[in-house]
């Protein structure tokens, strides 16, 4: 029987991999700290340079934690979308959630300067940006849910989500065209994605959002499994289509919307990780896939972030560049090797 128990070894392996990815992530960064000093700091020992301790505890560990939340959360939302929409190419972007967040951020960063000519929002920018992006993604989400209540066909919903994405990105383009160079630059930087710029409060908020998303996903395990047969079969198994779909969409919105708000629109993780996970966990059972996909996404995000740091240099590549460079070839490889992306 394909119960979670049969995958115990795989889970142990993936947890060990997560630990090492985390260690690697924590021990590398723009300031060169010897590996053993990093370990010593983690075990609470004093090290040669005081600032190292500060960097590790106050910068690197929160950043690594954020990477885990972002990677795991985005991957989980991708899994939910792929099952709900019965489409291997679905991801957090398809419902227009990420583009909604972009619109919110764009309105704040470029719209305010456009309307008032001042950019005095900078001093409380970190929170206001997250709020604007969250509001943007949830506004789009509300519209999608409104449509979802009326339309029973999930495919139509998918296309409507894509159309919302197009509309919002067109609006963002209009804003970008008319805004000044400085605010355009700020928006571009946000859209590059980053897991390192969060304040402690923001990390806590993000953790809360991701936790709620995970709880809702776990509560939806049975409907998610039933959806694998199709909506009619799910209904015949006693699943309430409207209610379960509502919960799953809310979970996705929380995960993808919340993460995009704080870390920017990070590409490909949500789409690619569920497929990668199935290479190891060859099952469709969501009791296995939900934790596995979350852990796998966390590992991949930690690795991408480690690479983005360009070890020992002050330069940091945009995280979006790394995830696209890793994610897009993975999708191509899956298509070429497997001939088709079966979900």
């Amino acid at each position: 029987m394909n119960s979670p128990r049969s995958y115990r070894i795989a889970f142990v392996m993936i947890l060990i991999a997560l630990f090492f990815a985390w260690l690697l992530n924590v021990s590398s960064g723009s300031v060169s700290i010897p590996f053993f000093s990093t370990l010593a700091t983690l075990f609470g020992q004093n090290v040669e340079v005081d600032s190292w301790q500060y960097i590790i505890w106050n910068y690197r560990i929160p950043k690594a934690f954020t990477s885990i939340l972002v990677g795991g959360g985005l991957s989980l939302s991708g899994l939910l979308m792929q099952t709900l929409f019965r489409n291997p190419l679905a991801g957090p972007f398809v419902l227009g959630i990420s583009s909604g967040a972009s619109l919110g951020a764009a309105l704040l960063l470029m719209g305010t300067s456009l309307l008032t000519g001042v950019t005095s929002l900078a001093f409380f920018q970190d929170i206001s940006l997250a709020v604007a992006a969250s509001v943007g993604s949830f506004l789009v989400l509300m519209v999608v849910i409104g449509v979802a209540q009326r339309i029973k066909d999930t495919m139509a919903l998918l296309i409507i989500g894509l159309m919302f994405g197009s509309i919002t990105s067109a609006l963002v383009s209009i804003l970008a065209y008319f805004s000044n160079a400085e605010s355009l630059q700020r928006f571009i930087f946000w859209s590059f994605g980053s897991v390192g710029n969060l304040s402690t409060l923001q990390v806590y908020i993000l953790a809360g959002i991701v936790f709620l998303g995970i709880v809702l996903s776990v509560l939806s395990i049975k409907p998610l499994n039933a959806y694998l047969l199709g909506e009619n079969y799910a209904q015949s198994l006693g699943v309430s289509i409207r209610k379960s779909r509502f919960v799953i969409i809310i979970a996705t919105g929380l995960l993808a919307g919340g993460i995009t708000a704080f870390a920017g629109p990070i590409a490909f993780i949500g789409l690619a990780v569920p497929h990668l996970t199935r290479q190891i966990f060859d099952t469709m059972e969501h009791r296995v896939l939900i934790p596995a996909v979350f852990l796998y996404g966390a590992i991949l995000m930690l690795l991408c972030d480690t690479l983005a740091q360009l070890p020992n240099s002050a330069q940091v590549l945009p995280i979006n560049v790394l995830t696209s460079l890793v994610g897009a070839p993975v999708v191509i490889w899956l298509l070429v090797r497997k001939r088709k992306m079966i979900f």
Partner: protein
Amino acid sequence: MSQQENHIISVKELSIGYGSKKVAENINFSMESGILCGIVGINGIGKSTLLRTLGAFQPKLQGSINMGHLALEDHSASELSKKISVVLTEQPASKNLTVQELIALGRQPHTNWMGSLTHQDKRHIHESLNTFMLDELRQRKCHELSDGQLQRVFIARAMAQDTPIILLDEPTTHLDLYHKVQILRLLQQLAHQKQKTIVFTTHEIDLAIQLCDKILILDGVENPFGDPCELIDQKRFEKIFPSEMVKFDSKTGSFKINR
């Protein structure tokens, strides 16, 4: 207990259709447990619509449908899932499911909030695998199966759901004669040995005559229902198709092309 209360399905004066568009009306039939019943009729007469209505996928227009002593619409979703299982014409959304995983999904109405399988659930799954000769295929993915195998998997899933009523929409389409007969024989066994009430739509009228206990003919007028032999005697099959093309031969119980 009166005759009426023994009936697991009882349909009276039923009209079916979509909104204002009536597809079929004046449908009356009832049957007890352990019956294999085929619904036959020409394309577009409303066979699938009737099956969808019986399965509560769409509302009836008029009349009454009783499942046991309770009207169909008075069942909650979870009660229905324990009473009626279905085999539809649609493919599974994910063909990456293994045979065993797919059949295990049939146990959902009986499992806890996480869908953990108890010993009893596993016994039902095992029995279904066994009945439908799927033991060797249990770890295969659905996309690796032939049409006939996949159809057996779906019927096994319905059996694992362990409901008194099983509805099947054209379970024998796309299959060759051998597999058509195989599927129908398995359904007959299931109905007789497990006392299930099995209703299916089909275009294989000659096979249905040989294997079904009851047949409902949708002809758009009287919609006769009864034993196959009775219906033959009453010359009911002659009216299914326009007579200029095919003619029913009541001696062999099959249709012949007019020359």
